[in-house]
């Protein structure tokens, strides 16, 4: 048992750090700091640079574009990206759909979809939740009926509504859970379909969230024709794909490296922000203890994640224990945003989105937008299976209760 980095790991860290420093677009960094919403090209720009280097999908099987890195190297890579505040690679294609495709997809589906995901050419969104099916995902009602169209080919005719679809406004494709058999128990009648978002009958409607952003959407499906070959795995066995995907979603959700970076920023901010006695905020015993407390909690999560990673690299897939990572990871992310808001003091209140560009700064940079981030981050204990549902999963699957 050790956590020492071998000389080749140290060299890898240097290489990764240098690559980011030399290649991360300065324009994108500016865009990340601005109040303006990021564009599709913004999101894809770093992804495409990594793809050209062959680094956009480290966790994939090597034959499809994985890097073949060891667990340690992947860990170093995620740390270096977080350290440099790079824009995160969107998970929908790379870490959610791709494992489903290479596990359950046909050879043709893999050939057709994986390269574009890897190269940042196709934007994917996730059509899971519905207005009546959130925590109880298996109760979803979006209906897909098999028809033979005038062209003599077989299609699914899809009707229903999906919701909370993240960044669907940019999506070229979506992976959807649909009901293909309404007459069996809920989990048994679901299929996993890949839908071209430009298909006639697909409508994306924005949902504005409480901090004022447009991140999620309603997606309406009105007589959308989906070729049968766009179904992944067997008809009515989409729940198997869904479960596999959710486990991957949960393990990626811990965000340890990003939280470590967030803590580092919080420490810096609390050195420049003032306490009531006019000294640095980090000298305030109350605030200081909260930061220490959070750091300890994050260290525990980091080692839990490392244990999970070690398990994965020895061949075990992410299991139900990945629910621990989701719960603790999101609680820590939320706690970080609480402390950043507390650090901002009065300057947490200004809402500067939509003000003219020449309005100028209000308060210190570190306070800028922290309330919005705090509000927005409340979603993390709701999405990907709420933290209450995660506890149910642990109770049932891990503890056997």
């Amino acid at each position, binding site marked *: 048992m050790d956590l020492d980095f071998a000389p080749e790991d140290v060299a890898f860290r240097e290489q990764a750090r240098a690559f980011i420093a030399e290649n991360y677009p300065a324009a994108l960094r500016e865009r990340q700091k601005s109040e303006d919403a990021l564009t599709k090209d913004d999101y894809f720009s770093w992804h495409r640079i990594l793809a050209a280097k062959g680094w956009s999908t480290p966790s994939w099987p090597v034959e499809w574009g994985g890097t073949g890195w060891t667990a340690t190297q992947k860990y170093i890579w995620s740390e270096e990206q977080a350290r440099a505040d790079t824009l995160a690679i969107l998970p929908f294609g790379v870490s959610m759909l791709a494992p489903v495709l290479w596990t359950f997809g046909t050879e043709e589906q893999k050939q057709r979809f994986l390269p574009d995901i890897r190269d940042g050419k196709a934007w994917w969104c996730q059509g899971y*939740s519905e207005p*009546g*099916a*959130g*925590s*109880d995902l298996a*109760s979803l009602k979006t209906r897909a009926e098999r028809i033979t169209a005038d062209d003599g080919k077989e299609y699914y005719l899809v009707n229903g509504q999906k*919701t*909370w679809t993240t960044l669907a406004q940019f999506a070229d494709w979506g992976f959807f859970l649909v009901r293909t058999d309404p007459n069996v128990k809920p989990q048994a009648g679901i299929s996993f379909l890949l839908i071209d978002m430009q298909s006639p009958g697909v409508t994306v409607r924005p*949902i*504005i*969230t*409480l*901090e*004022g952003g447009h991140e*999620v959407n309603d997606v309406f499906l009105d007589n959308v024709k989906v070729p049968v070959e766009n179904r992944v795995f067997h008809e009515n066995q989409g729940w198997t794909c869904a479960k596999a995907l959710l486990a991957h979603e949960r393990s990626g959700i811990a965000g340890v490296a990003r939280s470590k970076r967030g803590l580092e920023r919080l420490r810096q901010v609390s050195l420049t*922000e*003032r*306490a*009531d*006695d*006019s000294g640095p905020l980090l000298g*305030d015993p*109350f*605030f200081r203890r909260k930061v220490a407390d959070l750091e300890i909690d994050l260290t525990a999560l980091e080692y839990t994640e490392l244990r999970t990673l070690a398990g994965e690299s020895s061949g075990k897939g992410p299991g139900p224990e990945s629910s621990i990572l989701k719960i603790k990871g999101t609680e820590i992310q939320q706690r970080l945003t*609480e402390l950043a*808001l*507390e650090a901002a*003091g*009065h*300057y*947490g*209140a*200004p*809402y*500067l989105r939509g*003000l003219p560009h020449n*309005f*100028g700064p*209000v*308060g210190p940079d570190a306070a800028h937008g922290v*309330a*919005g981030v*705090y*509000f*927005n981050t*409340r*979603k993390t*204990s*709701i*999405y990907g299976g*709420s*933290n*209450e549902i995660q*506890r149910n999963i642990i109770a049932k699957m891990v503890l056997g209760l």
Partner: protein
Amino acid sequence: MDFSFSEEQTLLRDSLAAWLADNYDFDKRRAAIAAPEGWRPSAWKALAEDLGILGASFAEELGGLGGGSTEVMVVAEELGKALVVEPYLATVVIAGGYLRRSQSPTAHELVGKIIDGSARFAYAWAEPQARYCLHDIATTATKQGSGFVLNGAKSVVAGAPFATHLVVTARTGGGRRDRDGVSVFVVDKGAKGVVARDYPTVDGGRASEISFEHVALGAEALIAPEGAALPVVEAVTDEAIAALCAEACGVLRRLHEGTLDYTRQRKQFGASIASFQVLQHRMVDMFMALEQAVSMTYMANIKLAAEPSERSRSISAAKVQIGRACRFVGQNAIQLHGGMGMTEEMAIGHYFKRATMIEAEFGSTDHHLARYESLSFEKAA
């Protein structure tokens, strides 16, 4: 011992609640805060003229209805339930608090204008370097002739874009963090040298960064003892915190009720989610936090009349309890609403945002815990 409200106080609550239900529902508020002005003069006029709310807590000899802090508490809670953005706290409680203590005829005239709705105030006290320290004041008021010249900058002045007047803390003597040398002035918002940059706040209000550039003030602008105003600043701030706690109770009630309603309606796994024990326990915890917050708000209201150190200690205790309740109840209201709680179109998120801002107003939970500790233990130790 009596925690009940008088017939007049109950009537005040009921008439305000009825008016707000008819005139200040979520959609009307939403339209008003999105409009360029950000507030509704008609609502303010109704509070002054139709409802007599603005005069309810002033003494009769000042033209008020003879009430006091209990009337403020009743009003503030109802305003909290409707997320009212118009500047009741800064105008009636803070400006009113200073002006009614002042002996000057000008001050008493201004109270008349508060009561009739023609004067609205914002409180310019916080400074960029000061965090929550009331006497960390770099703004200066230098004697000139019989009056003063005001220079300095104030941060996040809530409601300033709606105000006709500002109440400003400034230094007439002493060093930046001295307890001595603090004075308080009324400044006409339109006075030469008052520069405001207005912006919205995350809870639907408006605020300004304000700088004072050689603003000339007459002697009558001084509304608290020159150079010795800190005890008055502390007393008025404590009154403001008591009113803020009452507002928070209104916000917390709505967060709690809204969550009960939603979880009763929302069905998952073939049942109302309110039937799940883990959510029931959470809502019980929210309920307890709310009830404890209400109790502390009553306590704070009673202790406003105590001697200063007992008063401040009690107010800090209340603010700590309220701050914790705002966070716990607010966060869990969103959590139990699931994705719906995250949407801009549902009221619950707007209550959560207001609750969050209340946590930091006039000092965070940590600030008041520290103040409580120092007032409770330092003398004993």
